[in-house]
């Protein structure tokens, strides 16, 4: 019963490999690769949107009218100061708590929300932050996070509930959310800087825009996932809509809601540290400064502080497992909860009082041991011993140079030196073959938009930078896929390996992308290679995890049926597991590509150049025209990559009509 569809899928896959589409795909790819002649200009001369001058003009107008125009006096201005005050007050409150008070607060909150182990972890993180000597910058990051996440969740959950109940509204915002999902964090900062200038306000707004969609999505997903049978029970009992929401929908959707908050926090952290670019300060600023001055030790130190903040929030928001929650609730009576709350507050208050009397506020300086020194020594030792001249592998510099020369340059030149129309045609054909005509139209349009951008950053035009970025993404994706796919399959087939990898993979995904650049920079210095390696390292965990989950998602009944027919392990993999997991694997690839893309863009900071550098330049040197054009190109490229892979994955949902 289960084998029949598998064979069908397998056949389709094999037939698919020999189909005209795939052959066409290969031909187009080969032609683009092999035709080394230019066939015309690299960019159309007749096609120019003049975005940069318009943006710069607008920016100039804003700088003159920010104080007087009504939209700023009554809209953006007050909003901006409200946000700034909210962050400042939160920061003051955190400082007022003193470090022992904060530690106790964190411990008790984690204990209440996520259990004892989480509380221990969270305390470790607080200590870690202090020990690294970054108490104050980290508090500032925490304050920024707290405000942004609170607003994101406060907006996200109601909107999510509303959209779960109103399909039309959901369809409308889905378009927006999908578009927002593919945009790397950088792109959110640009318009916010334009409207809110620099500081806390644009950071908070950008973070909300970036992170709230996770909350909206997962809330809506959870509410829509409530079994209709339970809704009917509530209706049959005479529950009002409000009661149904309160007693049935929200509790049943709780795991999804908690996950939404957790993801919102992770996304928020990713952008809050980058927001240092627009003057939000915090630990991100320390990383940024260190990266820009190539002080690897300091960068690692600050990076670890960010990781500690990330874990702190993750532990505080991960919630309990189903079993833990039940054990927790079983011991609960109303009196006990009140008692706990009161005594918790009492403990915090008395800790704060004692700390105040003892005169401590910030983490004691003589307890902190920044690890910049040893790290610098370590990387100096590495570069002394492993930079060049290591037998066989050559050394980090030789490796980096060789990759640049033999892999990255040829691929980049291939894309950069082609006539623009060849690239557009090739991408459109590839999109059409893999994802259908709508995707092809979208991709064509997106690239045409890029072709119409004219700002020139450093040495290159936006088009050239886009092709350069694309080449880096393609290489990183290929390497990631080659590593992640086999490991993911192995992990999917072996529960033990999966259980072993799982904590590692989960942990890796909590750390913001920004931080991955730091150790790679220590090893490989600046250039495109460290950026690419960082993006591979960042892309691997989700790549492995999603592949493994795809393989594990294959119904046990299908495996059993195949086994009963005497399949070998290899046959099982080839004919049952991979074909049935193919769609999830491709969706995993889609996610991985978008993550890699975001790191490649961020790597513009450490010498990967191209679009990322244009954005950084635009943000830090206040050349918003350039920044916005680069931002548009980034979004366009993200859309192209997303549409092609997602469309490809979705072609596998169309199952052959079941024969009754």
């Amino acid at each position: 019963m289960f084998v029949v569809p598998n064979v069908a899928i397998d056949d389709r896959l094999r037939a698919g490999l020999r189909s005209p589409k795939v052959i066409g795909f290969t031909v187009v790819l080969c032609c683009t690769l092999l035709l080394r002649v230019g066939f015309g200009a690299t960019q159309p001369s007749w096609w120019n949107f003049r975005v940069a001058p318009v943006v710069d003009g607008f920016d100039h107008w804003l700088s003159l009218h920010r104080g007087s125009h009504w939209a700023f006096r009554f809209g953006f201005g007050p909003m901006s100061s409200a946000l700034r005050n909210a962050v400042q007050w939160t920061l003051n409150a955190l400082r007022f708590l003193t470090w022992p008070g904060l530690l106790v607060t964190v411990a008790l909150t984690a204990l209440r929300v996520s259990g004892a182990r989480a509380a221990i972890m969270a305390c470790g993180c607080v200590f870690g932050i202090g020990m690294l000597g970054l108490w104050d910058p980290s508090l500032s990051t925490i304050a920024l996070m707290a405000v942004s996440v609170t607003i994101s969740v406060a907006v996200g959950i109601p909107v999510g509930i509303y959209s779960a109940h109103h399909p039309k509204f959901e369809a409308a915002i889905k378009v927006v959310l999908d578009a927002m999902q593919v945009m790397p964090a950088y792109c959110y900062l640009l318009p916010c800087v334009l409207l809110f200038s620099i500081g806390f306000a644009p950071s908070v707004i950008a973070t909300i825009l970036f992170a709230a969609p996770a909350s909206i999505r997962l809330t809506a997903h959870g509410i829509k996932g409530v079994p209709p049978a339970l809704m009917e029970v509530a209706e049959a009992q005479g529950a009002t809509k409000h009661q149904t929401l309160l007693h049935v929908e929200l509790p049943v959707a709780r795991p999804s809601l908690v996950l939404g908050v957790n993801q919102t926090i992770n996304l928020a952290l990713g952008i809050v540290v980058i927001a240092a670019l627009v003057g939000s300060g915090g630990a991100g600023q320390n990383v940024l400064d260190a990266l820009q001055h190539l002080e690897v030790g300091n960068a690692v130190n600050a990076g670890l502080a960010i990781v500690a903040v990330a874990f702190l929030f993750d532990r505080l928001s991960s919630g309990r497992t189903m079993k833990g929650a039940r054990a927790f609730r079983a011991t609960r009576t109303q009196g006990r909860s009140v008692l706990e709350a009161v005594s918790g507050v009492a403990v915090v208050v008395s800790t704060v009082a004692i700390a105040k009397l003892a005169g401590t506020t910030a983490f004691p300086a003589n307890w902190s041991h920044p690890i910049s020194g040893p790290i610098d020594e370590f990387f100096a030792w590495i570069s002394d011993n492993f930079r060049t001249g290591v037998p066989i592998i050559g050394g980090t510099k030789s490796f980096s140079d060789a990759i640049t020369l033999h892999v990255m340059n040829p691929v980049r030149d291939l894309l950069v030196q082609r006539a623009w129309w060849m690239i557009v045609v090739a991408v459109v054909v590839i999109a059409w073959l893999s994802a259908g005509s709508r995707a092809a139209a979208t991709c064509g349009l997106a690239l045409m938009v890029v072709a119409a951008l004219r700002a020139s950053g450093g040495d290159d035009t936006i088009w050239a930078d886009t092709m350069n970025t694309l080449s880096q993404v393609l290489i990183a994706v290929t390497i990631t896929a080659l590593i992640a796919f086999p490991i993911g399959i192995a992990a999917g087939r072996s529960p033990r390996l999966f259980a072993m990898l799982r904590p590692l993979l989960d942990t890796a995904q909590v750390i913001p992308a920004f931080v991955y650049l730091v150790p790679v920079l220590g090893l490989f210095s600046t250039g495109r290679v460290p950026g690419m390696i960082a993006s591979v390292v960042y892309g691997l965990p989700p790549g492995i995890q999603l592949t493994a989950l795809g393989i594990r998602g294959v119904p046990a009944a299908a495996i059993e049926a195949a086994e009963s027919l005497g399949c070998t392990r290899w046959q099982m993999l080839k004919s049952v597991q991979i074909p049935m997991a193919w769609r999830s694997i491709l969706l995993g690839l889609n996610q991985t590509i978008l993550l890699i893309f975001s790191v490649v863009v961020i790597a513009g900071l450490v010498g990967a150049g191209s679009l990322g550098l244009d954005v950084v330049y635009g943000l830090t040197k206040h050349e918003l025209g350039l920044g916005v054009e680069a931002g548009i190109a980034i979004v366009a490229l993200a859309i192209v990559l997303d549409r092609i892979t997602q469309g490809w994955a979705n072609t596998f949902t169309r199952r052959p009509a079941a024969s009754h």
Partner: protein
Amino acid sequence: METARTAIECNGIWKVFGPKSERIVDSPDADLPRSELETKTGCVAAVRDISFRVPEGGVFVVMGLSGSGKSTLIRCLSRLIEPTAGTITIDGQSVRALKPAELRELRRTKVSMVFQHFGLLPHRNALDNVAFGLEIQGRSKAQRLQRSREVLELVGLQDVAESYPDELSGGMQQRVGLARALANDPMILLFDEPFSALDPLIRREMQDEVLRLQRELKKTVVFITHDLNEALKLGDQIAIMRDGRFVQVASPDDLVANPADDYVRAFVQDVVRSND
């Protein structure tokens, strides 16, 4: 029994799913066989022109193959599914004329339902699941818990009051479902294939339980099943449903002795044979 007050009376209930379903009811299309109607209009006539009466304290059983419209019919009674046409009177009230708030009141106090899929809330323990309906009504916590304990005891589950649904066996879960329905002390209990998912032994036990409760508490019962033995055991009146219509409504003995047509005969054949 015949002189008892009427608890439920239905006249000419129709339920047609699909676009412009109201127009189907009085049109000539209404008499088309189901599949023809669907190809012609895109509508599914799940319940067609059904009328019946249940006296207070009576047990009315509806039986039929899967897809014959039983679930749709029983949901029409408390308007969980809005009927397309017909009148429904429960305890003298015209159900279709009720405003939303009045309808909620009816469901809270007069009509309770037990589902095939149990429908227990996974995040509440047995006691709180039973108390759910009372909570919806806004009863005080003390009242709720006392009443729920009583009802749990009635169905023999006082010992597992603190257990969660996934810690209970199917039979126990359905007892909780039954207790939840009884907690509001309704006049009418609606059962939609409540025991289909249970093992035969447990099923028999549960049927006895329902009979016992019905005798003790004098509830009016509408019971859906596709199991003839269950129908014969529980029902005062049995309706055989096919393609949305009642083919025959009769007492258990009558049904076995005089099946109205081949469809009914096919149903009762087994019993006749097993009684030989």
